């Protein structure tokens, strides 16, 4: 394969990895928007979704069922976390406290997963349906890769449309700005916040199934690096900015893959972080972060 084709292929892989990060990152940034809290359990939610999908596959169901299972299991988990680890905290607490509470939740989930799901890596199937290659113009692409990209794009765009153009989206953004005033408009933040949590967790769950299919294995510790990268993407893109989270995720995904391909896999994370540090020094509130909406 010539150098250019290799480059393009790696670029594509970077986009795929990046779009998986994006699904996780969007959820993080949305939750931050309405709760002013960084949900550090998002990586574990991702992991649980992946396992739910695996269970579906092992029970003989297909891709659709697995994706739905992943989304559903993660959404449920997200709702539990919101109810048990975040809602009981007083509104006036330092915002870092909520974040640390999600750390606690993450520890609990991970321990339970290691105990009841699997203590080690498990193989993850790629459904036969998606195992073929398809020719697009001069390039032949794995159908799976295409599927991942398209699904991620559809979900991202769909969610953005919901947030920007629907009444529910207005409610979400109103609660993000001031739950108290929103309540005076008849908007119940006790309903809006769990909805946002469920949506963001469902996206992470779908990402889990997709990543499982892509790498063909899954383990209980996969949540940590994914969560970290997604967090980095959210911050690089600017807290609260969905577009920023997506752009930054793609950037990180590509940087990672390129580093592995052209430098060495042991420097992979270092390069990603170096880019993040550099970008933040240039734009201290993230690529698309707004200085007006400063929280924390």
């Amino acid at each position, binding site marked *: 394969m010539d150098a250019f084709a290799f480059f393009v292929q790696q670029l594509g892989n970077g986009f795929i990895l990046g779009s998986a990060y994006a699904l996780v990152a969007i959820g993080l940034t949305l939750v931050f928007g309405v709760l002013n809290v*960084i949900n550090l359990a998002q990586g574990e939610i991702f992991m649980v979704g992946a396992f739910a999908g695996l269970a579906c596959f092992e029970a003989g169901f297909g891709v659709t069922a697995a994706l739905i299972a992943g989304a559903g299991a993660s959404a449920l988990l997200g709702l539990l976390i919101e109810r*048990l*680890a975040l809602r*009981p*905290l*007083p509104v006036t*607490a*330092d915002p*870092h*406290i909520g974040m*640390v*509470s999600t*750390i*606690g*939740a*993450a*520890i*609990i989930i*991970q*321990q*339970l997963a290691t*105990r009841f799901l699997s203590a080690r890596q498990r193989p993850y199937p790629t459904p036969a349906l998606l195992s073929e290659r398809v020719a697009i113009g001069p390039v032949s692409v794995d159908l799976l890769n295409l599927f991942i990209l398209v699904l991620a794009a559809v979900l991202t765009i769909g969610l953005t449309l919901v947030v920007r153009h629907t009444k529910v989206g207005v409610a979400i953004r109103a609660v993000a700005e001031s739950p108290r005033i929103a309540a005076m408009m008849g908007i119940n933040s006790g309903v809006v916040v769990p909805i946002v949590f469920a949506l963001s967790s469902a996206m992470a769950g779908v990402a889990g199934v997709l990543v499982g299919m892509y790498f063909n294995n899954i383990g209980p510790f996969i949540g*940590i690096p994914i969560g*970290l990268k997604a*967090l*980095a993407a959210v*911050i*690089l893109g600017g*807290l609260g900015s969905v577009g920023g989270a997506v752009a930054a995720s793609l950037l990180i995904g590509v940087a990672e893959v390129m580093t592995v391909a052209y430098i060495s896999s*042991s*420097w992979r*994370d*270092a390069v990603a*972080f*170096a880019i*993040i*540090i550099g970008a*933040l*020094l240039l734009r*201290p*509130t*993230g690529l698309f*972060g707004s200085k007006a909406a*400063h*929280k*924390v």
Partner: protein
Amino acid sequence: MKTGRAPIASAAARNLRVARGCGIALASLLALYLAGLLPGLAPSSSVLPQLCISALMAIAVWLPFASGQLSLAQGGFMATGAYLSAWLTVQQHWPFAAALLAGAGATATLGLVVSYPALRLRGVYLAIATLGLGEVIRIFLLNLDATGGAFGFPGIPYHTRLWHLLLALGVTAGLLFLLMRGRIGRAVWAVRHDEIAAAALGIETTRIRVLTFTLGAFVAGLAGGLQAHYVRFIAPDNYGMAALIDWLVFVMVGGFETFVGAVAGAFLLGTMPELLRSFSDWRPLVNGVLLVALLILRPRGFVTRELLGWTFAPRSFDLPVSDVDSAAPPVHEPPSREALRIEGVSKSFGGVTALVDVTMSVRHGAIHGLIGPNGAGKTTLFNAIAGFASIDAGRIVFSGLPIQGLRPQQIARAGIARTFQNIRLYRDLTVLENVMLGGYVRTTSGVVRCVVGLDRAEERQAAGRALQLLRGLGLAARARDSAGALSYGDQRRLEIARALAAEPELLILDEPVAGMNDRERTALAGLLRSIRGDFGKTILLIEHDMELVMSLCEQVTVLNFGHAVASGSPAEVQAHPAVIEAYLGTPSAVGA
């Protein structure tokens, strides 16, 4: 008019007693356990040393956080200290103490260098950037063959004894106690809780941040070196996310208001794995559950300043020698002397023209009002005078000194003090502590003097002056109450008291009577007159209350759409057609 001076809230007092009781009980239990006196639960010999190291790292994480910077690079800093000191003892055969200090010193230097770019970032952005830095360091070490790379660095000589660790922890705690209880501690708190107010009070926020960041790196490097020579084998993975999360949790759960919280968190949460040894499999799960539960019960962390009974003010004061001093008749300057001159000042930002060629003059010893419709540029002008906004053209001259372009801290030192439209008090500090903060520019104890305890005399004098100021403003009885508990009117007076503590020549007040009723306004007007008369200050204020302005101010300047449209005595200004038009619309365009 009393709006209800709160009796000691019995529920809150009871909670405090319960928390203190729990704290003492836990501490005693812990002491017994560590001394091996708890039946059936004998600690292994490595428990206390590990706890000391964890405590040092918790302090290392706490230090930058105390000034508002969450730095997650501390793992990387610990690794730096560990690897450097280990390399020095193993490869270069340095003596332990020298290697240790060199490692910590180099780490501190790294911290110092990093702290400057770090100033550009805030909150989570800083957290991620520092996390990235820590990871970059770790990955660098992973790839560094000279120290074993991913295989780790073996064969480090066993130098660290328990007494080294206890000494290091004790000295660190002691020095921090001395440092944080007075002027510097107040400044650190101020920077963390409201940077803008801190700048207006003359606190060099940059220096404070760099100080805490560098100290944090030093402690981390020290802990790293000590640990390396205890466990004798180090590998880059020891300094990753898992450890970082532990330290962060220690600080948050233990209490992030003081370093005691960090240490308490490290000791209590660090001991739990040992105590729960019989449940070994379930330990991390229980840890996670406990973490969430503790946070819900005490969201400010277990150890708070209140729990310890600590305050940033000394217990005893030296009242100023003679009352006459501070009530000295003002120096009689010739009435035509100018305190403040604004010449041709223009400012626009973001396409909005805020100020256009504004010229005005404030006489020394006058009370000068600045009025104008919303959006006329009054606050922009104030911010320009106070150093919070730059100007595009013109000069601002204060007592003959050009001050345009100076930073807020320099303006404060030059003798200008301000209050804010939205009241920027430190609500969790007491009335007295707030006023002592106001006196920051008039005190000089720096890090060194605080740490060796030579600041006590100055602190007592500063407290005395503060108390006397409070007496003059009728707030002395509330000196030990927290500022957030005061009524609105009292909070405004407190903010003025704090501004006066800086002993300024010029006081600039942004809407000082907003939200007050008539009686409170009259009282404040009287207060301002007496400040001018007794203390010899010049006062410039922004206000919307026309009646107050007209009755209180000798001179009034009117701004409209960024232009100074009139300046003169209240009577002159009231009759000026441009003013009438600006404020009230032309007579024919009456609304309603």
